[in-house]
C-alpha cells in the first residue's frame, strides 16, 4: 500500500482509532494484523517470505542464550543463510546468472548449454518483494545482536513479528534495531494529543515533499533521463541535479510519513536524515544520509572487518560500499555509483592531513574551506547519481558524454517555464526549512504559533496540496530496494 494513496487515507485512521480504543494487551495484535494487511495490499503471496524470516529468526534467537558457543554459531548461520538466501534468490539471482553469462561471453567460453540463458530460465520474472532489503537487514541485526549478547531474545512471538513488520517502516525503513523498537512496542502507550499532532504534521510534510516537490522534479528528471542522447547539454545537467533532489525528497518524504505515522501511535522511530545536502565532506554526508543503513553497514560489516578480521580500512570501505551498492539494486550501475562514493571517501581520508596543512599554510578562512568542501562533495556526489538513475552503464556514459556538448542552452524540455520556476523555488524553500529545522522537527514550524496563525497554515497547506500536487500516484523510489 502506498502512503500517497486513497487506500492509505482510509487505512490509517482505522488503525489509529482501533489502536487507541483497544486495551494495551491486544494492541500488538491489532498492529500486527494492520502491518500484514498493509504489506499484503501490494502482493499477498509475498507475505510468506516475511513470515519465513520472522519465524526462523525468532526461534534461532530464542535458542541462543541456552546453547553452547558452537550451537549458537550454527543458529546464527541458519538465520543469516535463510535471510540472505531469500534476498539472493528474489533480488540477485537474475543479476548473478546474467553477469556470469556476460563474463563467459566476454571470454568467449561456451560452458552454458546453447539456448539456456538466465532469461530462458525466467529468473528475471521472479517478483521482487517490496522492502525486502529493509526488513532483511532489520531482522538480521536482531539475531546478530542476540548472538553477541547485546540484546536478549524477545520471547513474545507476536511482539517480535511486529518488530519485523511494523507497517510505518516496513517497506523503506528506517532500519530499526531491536534494542530501540521492541521495548517501545511493549510499553503501554497513553493517548497524547500533542504527540499525535506532531506526528500528523510530520506526515503532512512528507506528503508535501512527495506529491508537490519530488514528483514534480520527477517529471523533468524522467524527460532528461529518457533521452540521454539529447543535444541540450544544459537540460541534462539540470536533469541530474533535479534527480539528486528528487531522490532525497522522495526518500525523506517516506521517512517523514513513517516517523509521523509511528509518532501518532506513540512510537519514536530513528531519524534517517540530518540535512545531508549541507555536508561539507563525504564522511559527513554518509553520516547524515540514510543514517540507519550507514550505521548498519558500519556496525555489522565495517567494524568486524577491521577489528575482527584485520582488514585494512581502505579494503573495508570498498567492501562496505560494494554491499551498499548491491543493497540498492541488482545492477552494476548501483555498484559503480557506490564505488565512486567510496573513492571520494578514501581520497578524502587519505589526504586529510595534507589538506589541513595546506589550508593552514595558506591561511584560508574556515568558512571558505567548508564552502569549497561542500561544493566539491555535493557536486561530485550529485553527478555520481547519474549511474544510480540510469538503467545501464552505457546509458549513464552517454548521459555524461552529452552533458559536455555545449552546443545548446535549451533548458525548458517540458515546455513549461512556470513549472521550472516552481521546481527551483520549491527546492530553495525546502532546503531553507531543512536548514533551520532539520529533517525531523519540521512540526516546530507550526506548533509554536498562535491559534489563528496555525489555522491559516493548515488551510494554506490544503490549498497548496490541492493546487500544486502532481497526480502521478508514483511509488516511492526506495520501495524498489
Amino acid at each position, binding site marked *: 500500500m502506498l502512503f500517497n494513496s486513497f487506500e492509505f487515507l482510509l487505512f490509517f485512521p482505522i488503525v489509529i482509532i482501533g489502536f487507541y480504543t483497544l486495551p494495551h494487551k491486544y494492541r500488538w495484535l491489532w498492529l500486527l494484523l494492520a502491518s500484514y494487511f498493509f504489506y499484503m495490499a501490494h502482493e499477498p503471496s509475498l507475505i510468506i517470505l516475511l513470515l519465513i524470516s520472522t519465524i526462523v529468526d525468532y526461534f534461532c534467537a530464542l535458542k541462543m542464550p541456552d546453547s553452547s558457543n558452537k550451537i549458537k554459531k550454527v543458529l546464527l548461520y541458519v538465520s543469516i543463510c535463510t535471510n540472505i538466501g531469500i534476498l539472493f534468490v528474489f533480488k540477485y539471482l537474475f543479476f548473478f546468472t546474467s553477469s556470469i553469462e556476460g563474463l563467459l561471453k566476454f571470454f568467449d567460453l561456451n560452458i552454458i548449454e546453447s539456448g539456456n540463458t538466465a532469461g530462458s530460465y525466467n529468473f528475471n520474472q521472479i517478483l521482487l518483494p517490496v522492502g525486502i532489503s529493509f526488513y532483511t537487514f532489520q531482522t538480521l541485526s536482531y539475531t546478530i545482536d542476540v548472538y553477541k549478547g547485546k540484546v536478549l531474545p524477545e520471547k513474545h512471538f507476536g511482539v517480535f513479528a511486529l518488530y519485523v513488520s511494523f507497517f510505518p517502516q516496513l517497506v523503506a525503513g528506517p532500519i530499526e534495531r531491536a534494542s530501540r523498537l521492541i521495548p517501545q512496542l511493549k510499553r503501554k502507550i497513553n493517548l497524547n*494529543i500533542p504527540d499525535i499532532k506532531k506526528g500528523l504534521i510530520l506526515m503532512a510534510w512528507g506528503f508535501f515533499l512527495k506529491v508537490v516537490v519530488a514528483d514534480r522534479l520527477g517529471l523533468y528528471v524522467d524527460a532528461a533521463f529518457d533521452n540521454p542522447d539529447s543535444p541540450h547539454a544544459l537540460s541534462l545537467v539540470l536533469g541530474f541535479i533535479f534527480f539528486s533532489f528528487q531522490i532525497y525528497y522522495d526518500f525523506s518524504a517516506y521517512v517523514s510519513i513513517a516517523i509521523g505515522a509511528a509518532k501518532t501511535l506513540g512510537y519514536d522511530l530513528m531519524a534517517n536524515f540530518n540535512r545531508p545536502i549541507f555536508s561539507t565532506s563525504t564522511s559527513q554526508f554518509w553520516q547524515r544520509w540514510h543514517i540507519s543503513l550507514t550505521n548498519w553497514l558500519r556496525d555489522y560489516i565495517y567494524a568486524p572487518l577491521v577489528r575482527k578480521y584485520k582488514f585494512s580500512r581502505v579494503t573495508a570501505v570498498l567492501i562496505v560500499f560494494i554491499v551498499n551498492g548491491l543493497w540498492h539494486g541488482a545492477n552494476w550501475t548501483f555498484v559503480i555509483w557506490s564505488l565512486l562514493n567510496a573513492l571520494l571517501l578514501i581520497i578524502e581520508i587519505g589526504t586529510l592531513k595534507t589538506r589541513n596543512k595546506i589550508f593552514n599554510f595558506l591561511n584560508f578562512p574556515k568558512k571558505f574551506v567548508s564552502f569549497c568542501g561542500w561544493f566539491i562533495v555535493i557536486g561530485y556526489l550529485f553527478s555520481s547519481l547519474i549511474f544510480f538513475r540510469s538503467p545501464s552503464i552505457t546509458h549513464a556514459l552517454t548521459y555524461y558524454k552529452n552533458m559536455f556538448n555545449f552546443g545548446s542552452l535549451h533548458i525548458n524540455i517540458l515546455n513549461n517555464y512556470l513549472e521550472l520556476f516552481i521546481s527551483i523555488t520549491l527546492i530553495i524553500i525546502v532546503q531553507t526549512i531543512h536548514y533551520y529545522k532539520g529533517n525531523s522537527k519540521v512540526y516546530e514550524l507550526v506548533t509554536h504559533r498562535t491559534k489563528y496563525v496555525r489555522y491559516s497554515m493548515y488551510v494554506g497547506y490544503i490549498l497548496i496540496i490541492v493546487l500544486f*500536487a502532481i497526480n502521478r500516484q508514483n511509488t516511492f523510489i526506495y520501495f524498489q530496494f
Partner: protein
Amino acid sequence: MSLKKFIVQLLLYFILFAGIYFFFVYKLSKGYVDQFYNKVNQDAGSLIIGLSRADQGIDPFILEEELSNYDKPIVNFSMNAHQSAFGEVYLQGIDKKLSTNNINGLFIVSISPGNFTVRAEIKDDKIYDLDKEAIIGSIDNLTSKPNFDYIISKYQQPLYNSLFNKENLDYFMSHPNGWNEIALAKENDSKDMAFWKEQTTDYYNREIKKLRISKYRIKYFVKTIEYLKTKGKVFVIRMPSDLDVVKFENDNWKNFDSQFDSISKKHSIPYFNYSKRSNEFIAYDGSHLESESAKKFTKLLSIDIKNYLKTKKSIN
C-alpha cells in the same frame, strides 16, 4: 484539548480538503483539461482508431458532413503509441466507446509501423499489463462528461491549471469530437519545419534500435478490425506524412504495405495507402499533418470512401 474536539477539527480539515479538491476538479472539467480528455467523454457511433497521426490528421466533423449515413457522433479515438496501440486493452476501450446497438458505424483504422512495435525488452505476454497502465486501461469510464474518473486518476498536471483557460492557444485546438488540431503560426516558416522534422527523424533513428515488431499487436489489429466489422464499415488506411519519414519506415519494414494489404483483403476490408501521396500534404514535423492538410486529407478520404462504396476499388 479534548479528544472529541480534536477529532471534530480533523474531520473539518478533511471535509475542507475534499471540498476544495472537488471544487478545482469540477472547475478544471469546465475548461480545457488535456489533449486526451475530449476522447473520453462521449458515446460514439463511429470511431477513428490509430495513433498520433490519426489523432491530428483526421477531422471527424468533415467525415460527419461528407458521410452522413453513418452512426454519429464520429469520435477521434486515436491517441499515441503509448496510449492506443493495438491490443486487448485498446479493443476493450473501443467496445466501451460504442453503444451496444451500434451496427452502422464508420471505422477508420489508421496504421503505420508504430502501431505494431514495442520496446525490445518487453515480451508479448507483458504487453497487456503495460497497456493496462495507459489511460484506456486504467479508467472504467470512457464516455461521461464531465469525466471525473479521468481527471482524478489520469490528469497528471497540477490543478492550478484550472485557474487558466488554455483552450485558445494559437496553434493548438482540442475539439470536443477528439480531434487535436495543430495549426502553423504565421511566423512559422520552412526553417522551423525543417528543424522539427530533423528532431523527429533523430528521434526515430534512436528509437528504432530499441524496438521490435510485436506479433501480439498484429494479432490484436486483426481482432480489432474483425470486431469493428460487426459494428459497421471498416477502412484501414495508412496516412500521409513526410516522404523521408515514409521512406525511413519502408526501409525498416520493407513489406509493410503488402503485408497489411493482404491481411485487410483476407478480412474483406479495404486498405487505402496514402503514404505515396505524402507530397500533397504538409507534415509540420515530418510525421503529423498540420490543420489545413488534415482537413484536406479528411475530405480526400471521404471522397475515396464514397467512391469505394460505389466501385469497390481500394486506393493503393
